[in-house]
């Protein structure tokens, strides 16, 4: 009986909680859930943009068939996936390595962290402008270095492969610190006893890393990868500032493609289809990643 009155109390509390958060939830629904639903609705409708707003006239699968048949979309998908996989892999490897070093530092750790946060805390557009100066073919510092080394004056952002690598470099520079912070938080949570026990057993550095540190870090790294994949897949500001999708359309990401279709060409239907399918792809990608990661963790533990 005591427990049922306790349950009733909890239900009342829950109701009150919902009531109190209702205004905030309404705002969130209005500014995020509604636009998402509207974008999905747009992607399956005949959209016409007029001076007095959009009108959705009837259902159609046309937007998606336009998208699937467009070579630009297939290339943008390839580019975005390639970009995501490469940058996230480098950032996680580099970030973990840096975090391992930082963990050993004592008084310098705080200073190093503060230093590393500078690139991460900078707005991407400003970050991109700075890299634009570095990559500039007429007065950029990188070209100056190349020409002093006798390697000529490459036009980095005007050549396909170097342009892609340049974007990746700017991304790695900016977001590796983010991975470092997350991994470092995971590192300091690992109990000291594990390392002491391993040392007593006579394990070497590599063995300790692969048998103790890495398995313990797994959930933390998974979290870092998830955050990074979500962000990298929506790649927009770096190419928007640095290359505008060029040379040709070799750095045109899915987000740039959707933006151009919607706000430059006023093709809101196909643009919404690209946006919706991009979101869907990244959600599926993350779910698959989590599943694989968990399954692997399970087999190792058993």
């Amino acid at each position: 009986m005591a427990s049922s009155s306790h349950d009733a109390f909890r239900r009342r509390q829950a109701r009150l909680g919902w009531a109190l958060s209702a205004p905030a939830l309404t705002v969130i629904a209005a500014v995020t859930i509604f636009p998402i639903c509207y974008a999905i609705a747009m992607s399956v409708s005949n959209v016409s943009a007029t001076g007095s707003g959009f009108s959705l006239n009837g259902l159609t699968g046309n937007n998606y068939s336009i998208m699937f048949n467009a070579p630009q979309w297939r290339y943008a998908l390839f580019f975005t996936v390639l970009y995501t996989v490469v940058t996230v892999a480098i950032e996680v490897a580099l970030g973990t390595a840096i975090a391992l070093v930082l963990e050993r530092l004592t008084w310098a750790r705080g200073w190093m962290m503060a230093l590393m946060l500078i690139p991460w805390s900078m707005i991407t557009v400003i970050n991109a402008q700075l890299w634009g100066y570095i990559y500039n073919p007429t007065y950029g510092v990188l070209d100056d270095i190349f020409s002093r080394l006798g390697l000529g004056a490459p036009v980095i952002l005007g050549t396909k492969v170097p342009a892609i690598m340049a974007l990746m470099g700017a991304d790695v520079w900016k977001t590796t610190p983010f991975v470092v912070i997350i991994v470092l938080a995971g590192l300091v949570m690992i109990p000291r006893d594990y390392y002491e026990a391993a040392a007593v057993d006579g394990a070497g550095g590599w063995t300790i890393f692969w048998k103790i540190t890495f398995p313990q870090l797994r959930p933390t790294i998974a979290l870092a990868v998830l955050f990074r994949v979500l962000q990298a897949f929506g790649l927009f500001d770096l190419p928007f500032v640095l290359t505008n999708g060029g040379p040709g359309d070799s750095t045109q990401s899915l987000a740039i493609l959707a933006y151009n279709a919607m706000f430059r060409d006023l093709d809101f239907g196909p643009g919404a289809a690209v946006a919706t399918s991009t979101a869907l792809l990244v959600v599926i990608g993350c779910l698959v990643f989590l599943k694989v990661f968990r399954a692997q963790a399970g087999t190792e533990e058993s």
Partner: protein
Amino acid sequence: MATAAASAVLLAATACGGSSSSGSGTSSAPAVSGSATSGTITWWASPITTSGSDPRTVLIKKFEKAYPKIHVNLQSAPTDTDTNRSSLITTISGGATSPDVYMGDVIWPGQFGKAGLAAPLSKYLPKSYFSQFAPGLAQGATYNGQVYGAPFFEDEGFLYYRKDLLAKEHMKVPTTWQQLESEASTLTKKKDAKYGYVWEGDSYEGLTCDFMEYLGSAGGTVLNSGMNGSTLNSAAGKKALSFMQSLITSGASPKAVTTMQEPQAMSAFASGQSAFLRNWDYGYSYANTASSPSKVVGKVGVAPLPGFAGGTSPGTSTIGGWNLYINPHSKHVAADLTFIKWMTGATAEKTLATQFSEIPTLQSVRTSSGVVSSNPVLAAAAKTRLIPRPAGTPQYAKVSQAIYTNVNSALTGSAQPGPALSSASSAINSAVSSSGSGL
């Protein structure tokens, strides 16, 4: 009597605004003619020049002196034209009644007219108003028989050159592209300048403008007269693109032009690194103003762009510049029209020309001796042959993208001129034919 007429007009304006008709609607009363004498309107305009006093506020002050009861609020727009456009599209399609008047690119009438994002000015203003402008300007602002933009100031491509370097090597100002190419390569070979000729070769709208000039000089076009098919993949197209490519391969232009937009090309020239420059009207004052970071003050000359050897000289210059448009949701159409008529009238145009060296749109001001003698750019402008971009189609943005991405690929060497043109051509065809909906 004047006030009575004005208040009648105002009444009509409010009635019109209340119905909030879109551009395609026919309910708007054409009785509104732009003789309102009071009200407050918002003008959306991006910065016109970056140095000295702001032409926008100078003009607003003069306007408010002429019409003391009309107050104009300036809303500064993004300097990047594409960002400017997307902000306007989202604002106006959301039904916003402000800004009332906006300054927009000359290539917007097709897209904005079709989507009802601009009010058709020709419904309010007589033919005689539009015929005062330089030939082609009002026509360029026309979509489907209606004029959507009032030509505010014009712009076009010019050739800037270093007088001192040409004199040193006893060279003449080039009148053909081939002459420009050989002089530019000679000047770099003799180490007179690091680069010969810089222009806008990045993958963006500016490259379409540059390409149109070579294409026009070669006698080519982009679209057929029905605006529903590409004519780009022609002998003239190949001549234009092969020549642009050869500028880079011959060393007349650096490889870096394929990443240059106006500011980069301008700074390469103004810092003394380049002997020739293709840029818009602002290039002259930028390079010759002592307060700017220019190192070539007093050494710069300006000429119309060259043509191809054996063809007409001078070559063609792409039309750029800005129009004034009315938001179809504006509640002050009468005051908007008063403002637009004044801003495109003789006083404002003369101020723009003599004080800010912008090219005036009014034919009478353009050719007046006071304006022509005030500035070498305006004198050169009187000699150029103008060519419009194919902006009569609402799909212009896609047509232009097909041009600049493929031309840029050819310039960077990742495609040959032939395949690049046929790829651009097929992208243009799929954009302008049928519904035109696509990526």
